[in-house]
């Protein structure tokens, strides 16, 4: 088995280091590139622009009939009702899309065709993401937004203008009605939503640090978190950006029923650093990343994180005391941000050359591990040059949303990709916007996208009230 991994990893490493621009250029004037994509039947209209176009006519042919849409000034906006009616009646079909337009420069008539495959699997109705300037350590206008995937409606879940400009991060859901979001700052805490009941927790104890990246068990009782001392350094090389790293990091489990925090001797200590934990679908295993500790930032390039597992007892809330590495890292290979699919079939991870913060690593890619066979798919159909990071599974395990910097290498944008039952993938497509030009004009990154089917119960005002007025409940350390 180990030899098989080494072969796979050798192959994968070659793919990773030799990663080139694999972005297809099938219809160069089309933005976003919605050509030949697989889409959920409940997705919002894929409005698009055609460069240098005037009037546009879009004809969509499916088994249920032919649909025509008109656009102007290079922009096609599909009427919401008609769009959903069309996709509803074309579930499981391949749509043939023909775009005809008048070129504004030479006034010639042009046309292009492509296809849309309408999957029968819906995508979760909601997506949350953080909107943040890609600056390094000062933030001003952080917002966490919840977007309706079936329309263009969005609601703010957090806005740090009303919370002392504190950092807000990691809005995470277990897709079953439990979510958390960290608010930093003097009056901060972790806002926990358990089936509509909100509390503000202080998860820091005398023995364990602040919780950072984490995951919630399917039943909502436990959260597994990294506790890390995070800092950053700057690269001297001009085309690289910052390097975020953990001075130290460990894992803890928080019991939301009893408000206790526990750790395991297997993941404490300074010999190794552990991060990015997630529960398996059955909640009996914790996947996480682990690397031998090196002096940082000088030896940061030596920080290669393996994928490891440890057992977890959901009855008692205790982590096991034995760690098993299931996918070893390699020279130029480090894993981060593990996310197990809700159906228990897959583990999606980020592979980068080194370190624990792939968001500024242009070589970062998403890899898919089959948890039954332990085969690794390096997902050539999904990855592109520019960081592909921070993925999130839909509740039915058929869709992932991830943040990609493939378009301009600086600003992350949410891409949606189809993952079939056997691991086959669809070409990723950019989260549709009412006017896709929004992506070109905005100077904020879409960060930490998270899919979930149940709407969040609070909004930015509630979050601000929680920050400012609600007492924090202290989580107790349980030895």
């Amino acid at each position, binding site marked *: 088995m180990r030899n098989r991994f080494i072969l796979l990893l050798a192959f994968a490493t070659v793919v990773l280091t030799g990663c080139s621009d694999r972005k297809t250029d099938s219809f160069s004037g089309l933005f976003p590139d919605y050509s030949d994509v697989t889409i959920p039947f409940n997705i919002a209209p894929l409005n698009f622009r055609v460069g240098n176009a005037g009037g546009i006519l879009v004809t969509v042919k499916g088994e249920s009939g032919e649909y025509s849409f008109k656009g102007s000034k290079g922009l096609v906006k599909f009427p919401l009702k008609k769009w959903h009616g069309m996709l509803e009646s074309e579930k499981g079909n391949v749509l043939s899309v023909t775009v005809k337009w008048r070129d504004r420069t030479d006034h010639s008539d042009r046309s292009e065709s492509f296809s849309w495959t309408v999957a029968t699997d819906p995508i979760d109705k909601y997506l949350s993401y953080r909107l943040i300037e890609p600056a*390094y350590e000062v933030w001003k206008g952080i917002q966490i937004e919840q977007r309706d995937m079936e329309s263009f409606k969005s609601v703010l879940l957090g806005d740090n203008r009303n919370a002392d400009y504190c950092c807000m991060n990691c809005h995470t859901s277990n897709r079953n009605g439990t979510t958390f979001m960290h608010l930093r700052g003097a009056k901060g805490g972790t806002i926990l939503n358990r089936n509509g009941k909100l509390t503000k927790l202080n998860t820091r104890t005398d023995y364990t640090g602040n919780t950072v990246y984490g995951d919630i068990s399917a039943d909502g009782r436990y959260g597994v978190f990294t506790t890390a001392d995070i800092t950053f350094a700057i690269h001297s090389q001009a085309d690289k950006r910052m390097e975020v790293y953990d001075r130290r990091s460990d894992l803890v489990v928080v019991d939301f029923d009893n408000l206790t925090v526990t750790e395991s001797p297997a993941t404490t200590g300074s010999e190794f650093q552990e991060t990015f934990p997630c529960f398996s679908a059955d909640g009996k295993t914790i996947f996480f990343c682990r690397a031998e500790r090196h002096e940082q930032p000088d030896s940061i390039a030596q920080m290669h994180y393996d994928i490891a597992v440890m057992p977890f007892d959901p009855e008692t809330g205790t982590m096991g005391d034995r760690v098993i590495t299931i996918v070893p890292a390699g020279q130029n290979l480090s894993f981060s941000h593990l996310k197990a699919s809700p159906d228990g079939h897959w583990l999606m991870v980020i592979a980068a050359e080194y370190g624990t913060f792939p968001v500024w690593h242009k070589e970062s890619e998403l890899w898919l591990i089959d948890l039954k066979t332990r085969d690794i798919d390096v997902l050539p159909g999904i990855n592109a040059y520019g960081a592909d990071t921070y993925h999130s599974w839909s509740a039915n395990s058929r869709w992932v949303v991830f943040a990609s910097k493939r378009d301009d290498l600086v600003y992350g944008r949410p891409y949606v990709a189809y993952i079939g039952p056997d691991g086959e993938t669809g070409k990723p497509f950019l989260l549709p916007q009412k006017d896709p030009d929004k992506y070109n004009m905005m100077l904020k990154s879409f960060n930490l996208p998270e899919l979930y089917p149940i709407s969040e119960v609070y909004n930015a005002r509630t979050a601000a009230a929680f920050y400012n007025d609600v007492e924090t409940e202290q989580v107790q350390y349980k030895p």
Partner: protein
Amino acid sequence: MMRRYRFLDAVYAVLVLLTIFGILVHQAPYRLEFKEQISIFLLGADRIGWYLSNPAVISSVLGDWLTQFYISGWNGALLSMLLLLLITAGLYRFYRLANPGHYAVLVLLVIPAVLESYFIPFPNYPVSATVGLALSVWSACALAHLKDSRFAPWIYGLSVPVMFVIAGGHALTMALMLCYLKRKDAAQTVVCLVAGLIAMALIGRLYNLTFIRTFIWPVYPKHIIPALWLLLLQPLLTVAVMALSTLSSRLIRIHVREFIFTFVMLTDVMFITTADKELENVIKIGTLAYRNDWKEVKNLASRHMTDRYCIFYWHLCNAREGRLPDELLKGRWGLSSRGLYLTTGKGDPCFSMMYFTDALMEIGDVSQATDCALLAQTVVPGHYSTRMLRRLAEIGVVTGDYAVASKYLNILARTRNHREWADNLLKCIETDSIPDQYLIWRSRTVPQDHFFAQGDIRSSLDIIAQESPYNKVAIDYQLCSYLLDKDIKSFVESYERYYLGKLDQIVNVPDIYQEALLTTVNSDESLRETVEKYHISQEVLTKFLHLMEVRARSENPNVLTEEAAGTYWNYIMAVSLTNRNLK
């Protein structure tokens, strides 16, 4: 008689406005121009969404549109004065409607404009705030035409939150003006207006604004305006001047007008002339650098050598001319090496981040330049700075990240003032004909990857010097910072590492470096070794020997010769040379 008073009043009011114009042009031209640098006017999908997601929709759009024309002090002052004229005219009109048959003392009604002229020079006081005031005043005029009916108070009440959405916090001004209008049968109107103000505060919550921010929107607190209560003075003053006008119109015959005029003029002059002149200089020098008018930058810097930004630009100008070490000590050096760099921490103003990118680009520290530019973009009030967008685009061109550069250039290509510049650079990228300046900067960047902490300029310079051995600007910055900090040990180490046998083969070693190297001498033997090893020139050696001779003879161990004035030996007097055992 009344006609004569009216004429005199109009003359006085016009004089006040002209004075404001004159003072703005004279005292705050660069602060006005700076508004354009830290804002942007776009009507793209994202910006429209931004406008709609905040209150003061109309005043923000109009204000940002007008800000585009603040491309010089004259333009800024003229537009500001026209807005103030509009506000005064609105108040006059409203007064006439509120007090039919009453005489309006214009010179009193111009006072809110005077107060507004105090706010205008603050770089973060947006033009949209002044536009919001004008909109509120004229809305009050429009509502004053409303006929008395039982619905009128309700319409007044409803108009407050509507006005908040349209013009921002100055809806309060309108509410107070309407209270004044209905002062004689105020009860119901006041109740409705208070209800309107409560609704406004609640709507502010919908926009995720605090109570205070609701009433001062679109002004951003925590920036430059020194006291928030000053902003609330404006609505109160607007009503107060009307009451005063009613009162003083009865006193017309005792020529109270002249007194008022004198008072207003004095206040006007005092407001603006006592405004922060240092801030004007800080913005002026940065703006001149932005315009690439380096000659003027140097002139200005040389005249204000007590200001950290001027010292910073003084050194930068010299570095650009390859004369950083030669001119290092000609300015005041009280700030030590801090004068060479700017700090970019959390509490530092946006100027530090914006200006520091100028030096970082020259040095070749593109990573930190990116960091600073993004930070500056973050801390400017509207999160968009055309100046920093240009810088980020330039950085993309320098690093060869054309996708990144194109992102910023495509945004700038949609602006009125930067379209041509952006289009030209986009063409350069398309044809791969990159302007020389960018190629020079590119040649100074570091090919190998190393890490350093944010703001650790010394480590960064070390890395650059190691990786680009002929990057004289970076090496000079490093050596000069050691000299200014009197850290001779580090200076000698760095000199030997980066200069000796490398740069000294192609450029003349600056005198100051030779002087610094001679300070390590403590015996005749080491003198000979030093002179030989570092190729000390005869001229510097003669001066040094003469100085040592005089000091050996003198009873005062700190005596300096006339020739030593302006040398590094003079600077380093705090580190005594007296223990040198020299003949």
